[in-house]
């Protein structure tokens, strides 16, 4: 009985843990100013509010939150062509390009308990803007038509409703890693930790709490 109580207490504590820790928010304030600090507090509060909600509500909440960030090209933002910013950098600067939205939304949703194999980084072509674009897709089941979280589109629509997007390729670093592990089990072959260059760099940056 006592053990169960302790477990409940621990779970409560875990649930109470904010998405972005206070120490990191202090560092963010130092670098990006009081406004940035406020944004992260808002994020923590928003995510905390979503914790007990359904997947769809979580998707909508996170999508709405991050779509408020300004769109900027990587060139203007980071001085390089294609840079995958960490969620901290993205919200810290309060600007980013399509991948940065996808990344930030992905990690927020993962934090809210949505499994990795339901979320994909989808490389698409935007017919409307005539450019390469990336959106976050949510698959309730592997073969279902996914829901699309797009920074240009405030609504979360099903993929077949998005005639303006042509799918090219799906990617999920975590899922790839887990799936290839699973798929190759029992084979005596060496597996590298590396899977995808941009993804690997991103994971490394997140681990370092790059902001």
């Amino acid at each position, binding site marked *: 009985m006592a053990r169960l109580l302790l477990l409940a207490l621990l779970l409560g504590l875990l649930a109470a843990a904010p998405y972005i820790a206070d120490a990191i928010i202090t560092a963010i304030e130092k670098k990006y100013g009081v406004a940035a600090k406020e944004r992260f507090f808002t994020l923590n509060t928003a995510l905390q509010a979503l914790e007990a909600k359904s997947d769809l509500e979580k998707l909508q909440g996170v999508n709405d939150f991050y779509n408020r960030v300004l769109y900027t090209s990587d060139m203007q933002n980071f001085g390089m062509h294609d840079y995958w910013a960490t969620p901290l950098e993205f919200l810290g600067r309060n600007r980013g390009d399509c991948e940065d939205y996808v990344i930030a939304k992905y990690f927020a949703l993962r934090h809210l308990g949505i499994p990795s194999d339901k979320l994909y980084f989808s490389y698409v072509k935007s017919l409307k803007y005539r450019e390469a674009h990336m959106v976050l897709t949510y698959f309730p089941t592997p073969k279902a038509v996914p829901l699309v979280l797009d920074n240009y589109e405030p609504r979360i629509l099903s993929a077949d409703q998005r005639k303006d997007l042509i*799918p090219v390729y*799906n990617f999920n670093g975590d899922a*790839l890693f887990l799936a290839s592990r699973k798929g190759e089990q029992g084979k005596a072959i060496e597996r590298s930790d590396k899977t995808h260059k941009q993804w690997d760099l991103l994971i490394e940056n997140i681990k370092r709490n790059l902001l």
Partner: protein
Amino acid sequence: MTLFKQITLLISTALLLILAAIMALSFQNASRALHEQLYEDAQNTAGSLSLTLGTAQGDAGTMETMINANFDSGHYIRIALHDLSGTSLYERIKERAKPDVPEWFVTWVPITVPTASAQVSAGWNPIALLHVQSDPAHAYVQLFDTARDLLLSFSVIALISLLILNALLHTVLRPLGRVQNQAESILQNRFVLQDRLPFTTEFRDVVRGMNAMVLKVKEIFEKGNEAMARNRELLYNDPVTRLFNRRYLMLKLPELLDMANERGDGMMLLMAFEGAQNVNQRLGRQRGDEFFRRLGTLLEHQSARFDEHIVARINGTEFAIMLPGCTADEATQIARQLDDLLALLKEEYQLEPGDCAISIGLYRYLCGQDAGTLMTKADYALTHAKAREDGNTYLFESKDDRVAMGKEQWRGIIETSLTQRRIALDFWPVVTAQSAAVIQRVVTFSLHDAQGASYPYGAFAAEATALGLLDELYVTALEQLLRRIDEGSAGEYSVRLSGEFLRSNVAYAALERLLGEHAHRLKHRLAFEVSDTMAHKHLDLVTRFDALFEHFGCRMGINQFLGQSSDYGYLQTIRPQFLKAEAAFWLDLSDESLQALRLMTDTMSITLIAAGVQTPQQLEALQSRGIEIIQGPLAQTLADEAARRS
């Protein structure tokens, strides 16, 4: 192990270890880079192929064709397509072909190729996972080449480094060789100064130390030499004329009268000077002395052509001239010339003819006589010369009871001895006074005629020289000796070499040949001795022979040492191992002179030996002067007794 070898070993080992480590690291880096490249190739293919597969929109046949097209390029050992649950959809595996490198290399350097994976989509949906694994065969070849190149270049670098190291060490350690040479020279009593101080501090200090020591030894030597010369002058010279005195003459006579003396018989001129008082009165003390000095020079001049001649003033008015090898006729002529020269000298000093005069007794002496007889006979001749009315010389010849032989007879005996190899070798023991142990045998040789009569060296040397057969006799005798000494018999043999033989043209080559043939089995068993006179008169020649003897491991000694030289520097040049002098010489030497001589000989580790020791009393006296090794009749007696006892 020399310092050079040790340092070389140390540095070489360190160098090779470092090179090996660098090589291992380089190889590891190359290997890692190859691994990475293999993986990246696989990853690139996985990425691009998965994109291509996406265009098939999930059609299995199209996807298989696409995979085949990639796989058949031959760069992969495996391409597999799995659905999301991990079930295999399609797979191509290459039978692992043996890489084109030696088997041991493959076992030694295992290359494990990681698998790269990518997701495959159809439309919006991810449908499969693609796994790609590169073929390491090419990587093996590349790695093998790298290893071979590394090994080759490192071998070359190691070789060059070792060569440079060797050259550097040689340069740095070259002074050490000189230091070692100097040290060895000092050990062999050769006192060499090293002018060039080595660059390396440690070596420099050592050289400084050795130089200082050598200088000290030189100083000791010079002091000893000076003292010897001073004493010799006081002891053996007439203070006015600088001629030798009676003491010296008496010491030298036994050697001249020795049966083995190569000059053979000779003449003694005993000259009495009358009117010395008149001369001194007329000329005064100083010019009187000068007059006698001039007279001495005249006598010396007249005798100069006879080797080993002695001119001595034996008292205030008598002069003795020893002319070895001189005939009665030659001596008579010299006496006549002396008379004329005196007349001229008197004129020069404006002396009246009647003021002074000389009388000369000429005596023909024979080898084997004793000094006392010689002096008596010469006195007898002088008395007769003084008494003559019609002249001032008198020639007296001892009756020669030895068989007088003509040239032809001599030729017969010598040639027979040569052809029949009938040269007798005579051995004279050299013993230590304490134990009577024979430490050396002096070798001389003699001839025998058909009747069994024996002729010592002195008897035939002059004749053999005249016949031009002396060299041959010597060489034959030496050859006989060298053949006779076998490895079994112990002890050293010391061969007396006459000056006559050494000065001949064939001696050097003959000795070189004989020693070349025999010396290897007679190491440290052979010694050669030459006379003091020979050594200081023909130092260059003796030095050459000394080097020859040293080369063949033979020792060398000086005999008949008599302090005729005013400089004993020659001892330093030829560095004899022993010094032999007549017992009388050792006993006659002043304490100071002996001390000075010992100072020199002890520094150079020269053994002092007394020759011609006759009586136990003599031996006792010699021992009290620190001379412990003797030869002569007493040595023979002691050796015989010792042999009988054992």
